């Protein structure tokens, strides 16, 4: 059994990261941003309502604000930074830009992770499945229309590239 109070390590985007001098109650969101410098996941509600802090843990999309960081040892954590590089955005990120789905941009990293997760498990979701999968991500700018258009664009592009 492992016990930890002060030093532990997390596997983030495939690399071990050591967390030092932490407090037991710190959320994964706090540790990602304030201790390790991963600024992709955003903090807003801190109660799992807005989805702007969405990351993948063992391929589940979860709110990093509701994960106790020290309990996430030995899991595979993927943040939005782990999905692409600045030079090579994913097709999902590119589609968000193309369709104008990014306005203030605060919700975007969480949405990118949520869309990535959806399309990994269901490559051709129906409209309602897309809405359902993104129901935990709140956007106050776009009215969602452009976000759904971006998802549809990715789906059709991927279908074309397969056929």
């Amino acid at each position, binding site marked *: 059994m492992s016990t930890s109070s002060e030093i532990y390590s997390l596997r983030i985007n495939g690399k071990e990261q050591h967390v030092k001098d932490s407090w*037991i*109650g710190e959320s994964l969101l706090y540790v990602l941003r304030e201790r390790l410098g991963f600024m992709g996941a955003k903090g807003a509600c*801190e109660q*799992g309502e807005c*989805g702007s802090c969405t990351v993948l843990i063992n391929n*589940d999309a979860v709110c990093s*604000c509701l994960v106790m960081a*020290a*309990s996430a040892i030995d899991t595979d954590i993927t943040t939005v930074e782990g999905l692409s590089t600045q030079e090579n955005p994913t097709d999902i990120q590119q589609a968000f830009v193309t369709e104008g789905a990014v306005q203030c941009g605060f919700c975007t990293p969480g949405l990118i992770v949520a869309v990535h997760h959806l399309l990994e498990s269901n490559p051709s979701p129906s409209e309602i499945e897309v809405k359902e999968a993104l129901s*935990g991500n709140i956007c106050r700018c776009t009215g969602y229309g452009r976000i759904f258009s971006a998802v549809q664009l990715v789906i059709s592009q991927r279908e074309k590239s397969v056929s």
Partner: protein
Amino acid sequence: MTIFSPRSLAEALQVIHEHPTARLLAGGTDTMVEINFRHFEPTDIISLRYVTELQAFADQGHNFRVGAAIPYKEFENGSYAHVSRALSEAARTVGSPQIRAAGTIGGNLGTCSPAGDTLPVLSALDAQVELASVNGVRTLSIHDFMLGVKRNARAANEIISAIHIPNIDGYQGYAKVGVRNAMVISIASACLVHDPKNKRVALALGAVGPTIIRCRDSEVWLGENADLSTSAPLSPEVLEEFARRVSSEARPITDHRSTAEYRTHAVGVLAQRLLKRAMQ
């Protein structure tokens, strides 16, 4: 201040035996909100993430034994969606996909909020709660487990290990009122289970009392005034009287989410709606 990450149920039980004031951490969707808002200052934490026994599932014929740390998503549309239709419907209404991937059925019981979405389902199905400690395992009726607002019968050295959910043939449904369709805490909820073989209907209400309310009087009245051996439609008079009786069994309060009057009305509507769906 320590976080323990036991790798088996035996280890977890030993840790909680030695640290009975430690907080058990399952999905974290309740505890982390408390911590983030400084309503709870953690000292010792026992993370249940790696206790694989708590993820176990068994179809035992007359019932299902469901590991306490199975997340909502598995009941919603995952591997265990077949256990109970009402449970899938209730799981679907919990928070968001992100919450349902993390939050667990055992955590819902551990928190024991009157608005806990799976709790009316477990009540209407007469589920049993399995509690483990270093001294062994005991099984409690859900009705004896839930004691009040965020109070349950788990002893300090116990871990909720599993829930036994009866396998009942017949209609089961869950309905809930909230301000929007996603990401909402229940204002009022209801679960109805029709068991034609035993000629009975069970109805449980959420968020209208200190804990889940089973509407025993309304159930008995319905049994005396309707043929519950089939699912033939009931007269409007019976449906309305059932709704009226259910409303009178609710014990709601007025709080920041809604008023007692609205909740009383709402559970009657929900009960009638579910009964209509069962009998058609």
